[in-house]
C-alpha cells in the first residue's frame, strides 16, 4: 500500500518536472522506481532473527521478574517489592519497540497516571493499572493493601504479552524506527523525570532504553559498516558518551541514584548527549537503500 502511494507521488513529481524544460527526453518515472525496488531487496533476515531472539529473551526475563515482583508485592513485602520494581521494568523498557506493538497491553502494563484520559481519575479507578499504579501504592501510599487485584492483573497482562510476542513479525522498520523511538522515550519523559514520578527510578528506564537502542545498532553494525563506516564510528562515540554520563550516576550496587538527586546541569548534559546520539541514529535507515 505504502509502496503504491509513494509511486504515485513520484509520478506527480514527474509531471511537474516535465514543465521545467528538461532538455533530455527521458522517462523520469522509471528512475525512482528502480531505486524503490532496491529498497525492498536488502536481505536482513539474519538481523531480524537476531533481534527477535533478543526481544524474546527480554520478554522471558520480564515475565520472570514480574512474577517475582508480584509475589513480593502480594506478600506485603514493601521494601522487597520496591527493590524489585525498577530492575524488573528494565526488561520491558529494553524491548519496548516490540512490547508496545500490542495495542492496549502497553498502557495496561506501563500506563502512567498522566496517560489516563480524565484528569484526577485513575488513582482509585480501575482504568489505571500496571506497574505505575503499584509504584504509586508502594512509594506514595506506602502500602500494598487494596492493590492485590492490580498486581494480579499485571501478572496476567505480562503473561499475555509474553504469549503474543512469540508470534510477532519483526520488520526492518520496526527495528530502525524502534531504535529512534527508544531514544525519543528518553528525551521526552525519562529525562524530565515524568516516567517514575513516585519512585524516581527514571534512570533505570533511561539506561534500559539506551541499551535497547544499542542492541539494534549492534545487530545492524555490519550492514551499516558496509554503507557508511563514518556513521558507525560516530554512533560508537555517541553511545559511549551517553553511557559514560549515565555511569556517573550509578550506585555501588549497580543501580542508579534517584532522579531527584540530579541537578539541572546533569539532566541538561544527559539530554544533550541523547539528542546528539539520536541524530546519527536516525540515519540507520540508509541500510535499506
Amino acid at each position: 500500500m505504502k509502496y503504491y502511494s509513494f509511486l504515485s507521488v513520484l509520478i506527480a513529481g514527474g509531471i511537474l518536472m516535465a514543465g521545467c524544460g528538461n532538455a533530455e527526453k527521458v522517462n523520469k518515472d522509471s528512475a525512482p522506481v528502480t531505486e524503490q525496488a532496491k529498497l525492498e531487496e536488502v536481505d536482513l533476515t539474519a538481523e531480524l532473527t537476531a533481534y527477535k531472539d533478543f526481544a524474546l529473551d527480554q520478554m522471558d526475563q520480564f515475565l520472570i521478574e514480574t512474577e517475582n515482583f508480584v509475589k513480593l508485592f502480594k506478600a506485603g513485602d514493601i521494601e522487597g517489592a520496591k527493590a524489585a520494581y525498577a530492575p524488573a521494568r528494565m526488561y520491558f523498557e529494553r524491548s519496548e519497540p516490540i512490547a508496545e506493538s500490542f495495542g492496549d497491553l502497553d498502557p495496561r502494563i506501563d500506563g502512567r497516571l498522566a496517560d489516563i484520559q480524565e484528569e484526577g481519575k485513575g488513582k482509585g479507578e480501575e482504568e489505571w493499572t500496571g506497574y505505575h499504579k503499584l509504584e504509586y501504592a508502594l512509594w506514595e501510599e506506602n502500602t500494598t493493601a487494596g492493590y492485590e487485584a492490580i498486581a494480579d492483573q499485571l501478572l496476567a497482562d505480562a503473561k499475555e504479552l509474553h504469549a503474543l510476542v512469540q508470534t510477532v513479525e519483526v520488520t526492518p522498520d520496526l527495528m530502525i524506527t524502534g531504535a529512534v523511538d527508544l531514544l525519543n522515550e528518553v528525551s521526552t519523559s525519562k529525562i524530565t523525570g515524568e516516567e517514575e514520578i513516585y519512585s524516581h527510578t527514571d534512570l533505570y528506564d533511561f539506561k534500559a532504553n539506551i541499551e535497547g537502542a544499542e542492541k539494534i545498532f549492534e545487530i545492524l553494525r555490519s550492514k551499516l559498516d558496509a554503507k557508511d563506516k563514518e556513521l558507525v564510528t560516530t554512533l560508537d562515540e555517541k553511545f559511549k558518551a551517553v553511557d559514560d554520563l549515565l555511569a556517573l550516576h550509578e550506585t555501588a550496587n549497580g543501580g542508579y541514584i534517584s532522579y531527584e538527586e540530579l541537578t539541572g546541569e546533569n539532566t541538561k548534559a544527559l539530554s544533550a548527549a541523547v539528542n546528539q546520539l539520536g541524530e546519527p541514529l536516525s540515519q540507520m535507515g540508509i541500510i535499506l537503500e
Partner: protein
Amino acid sequence: MTTSNDEKWINKKISRRDMLKFTGIGAVGVAIGASGFGGVIKAMGYDVFESVADSKTAFNKVDFYGRHQSGIITPVQTHIYFASLNVLVSSKKDLQEVFKKWTPLIVRLMNGELMVDLTPNTRVPTGDTGEAEGLNASNLSITVGVGPSLFDKLGITNLKPAELADLPHFPKDQLQEEFTGGDICIQACADDPQVAFHAVRNLVRAASGKVEIKWSQAGFNSFPAAGGTPRNLFAFKDGTVNPAITDEKDLKEVVWVDKGWLKGGSYLVARKIQMHLETWDRTSLKDQEATFGRYRDSGAAFGKTKEFDDFDVDAKDEKGAYIMPDTSHVHLARKSNARMLRRSYSYASGVMTNTGAHDAGLLFVSFQKNPDQFTTVQNSLGRMDKMNEYITHRGSAVFACFPGVQKGSYLGEALFNAL
C-alpha cells in the same frame, strides 16, 4: 523497462544547472531518484559537490556572496531568530568543517531552497526539516560570527583580536548566564518568522554533535505602511540616527573592520533588554517623552518638528535649561559622540514567572567597527539615563562577524588561513 536513455539519466552526475531545474521556483518537493546523485548526497552528510550559487530567479532573495555578510547592511526585515551557540568540538579542523559545511547550506537557505533535496529513501528522516517548504526566500539573511570564548576553547587566543572581549559591566546590568555569551552566533533575519527559525534549526541540526544552542531569542519589527522608522514596544521610533546603509563612506567609518582576518567583517553586540511595560504604561506621555528626549508621535527631538531634524544637545531655553533634558536617552547617547549601526528587534516571550509581568523587551543588536563604540555609548548613558527606570539588561554577547564570502570560499576562511 529501463532504456539506455534512462540509464544515462540515472547514472549521470547531475550538474548544478540541472539541479536548479528541479529545485527552482515552481517545482515542489521533487524526489530525485538518480543513484549518481543519491550517492553524493549521503543521507545526512549534506555533501555538496560544488559550491552553490546565489539564485538569479528566487523571489525576495538577499544575496549571500559579496564583500560583506548579509544581515548587516541588508534592509531590516520584519523577523529575527538569533541563536548563540556553544561549540562541542575542540580541534580547529572540526570547527573549520562546520563552517565549510554551513556555507553552501546557507546559500541554499537564502535561495529559498531545501537544505538537501529529497531522497527516495523514506526510512530516514529528511535532510531538511521541511517547514519552509512552499515559502519563498523571504529576504532571509544569515550572519555568522564568533565570540571571544571560542578562541580560548580552541587554544587560538593569538588570533583573537584585542577588540573581541566580553563587554564590561555597566551600571544596572543584571546579566543572566543563560542569555549571555556564546562561541558562535547565527543571526537569521527574514520577512517570515518561520523562514528565520527554519534556518537556525536546520543549521544547528546539520552540525549536531559539533555545536549546541546556548541561548536564542526570536524578535519582530513592524514597519508603518507609509514607511519610516519602526517603533519599539515603548512606542518610540528606534533607529533614527543610524548611518544610511547606502553611505559607503559612513559605513566604512562606523561598521566595517579594516584590518586582520576580520577585514570586511564587523563586531556584533547583542543585548537582551527587558522592558518593564507595566511601569512604562503608567507613566504620563510627558514623562515618557522626557525619558527619550523625543516626541512620541513624530519622533522629532525636543524643540524640533520632524524626525530627522538635526538637533543640538546643548541647546538651552530662555531659562537656561536644556531643551533636551540632560538625563534623556537621546541626549546622553548623542553626547557620547560614538556611533553604530543598530538592527534591533522587539520580543514578547510570555510571562516572567517570578513577577507575572510581561517578559518583553528589545533584542538590541548593533554592528560596529569596534565594540568600544557600544561601550562608549553605554557608559555615557550610565546611571544618568532616565530610561534605566524602565529597562533591565538581562543578556549580553559580542561576536566578530566574518567578512563576506566569495564563491568557492567559505565562512571564516581568512581566520582559518591565519592559523
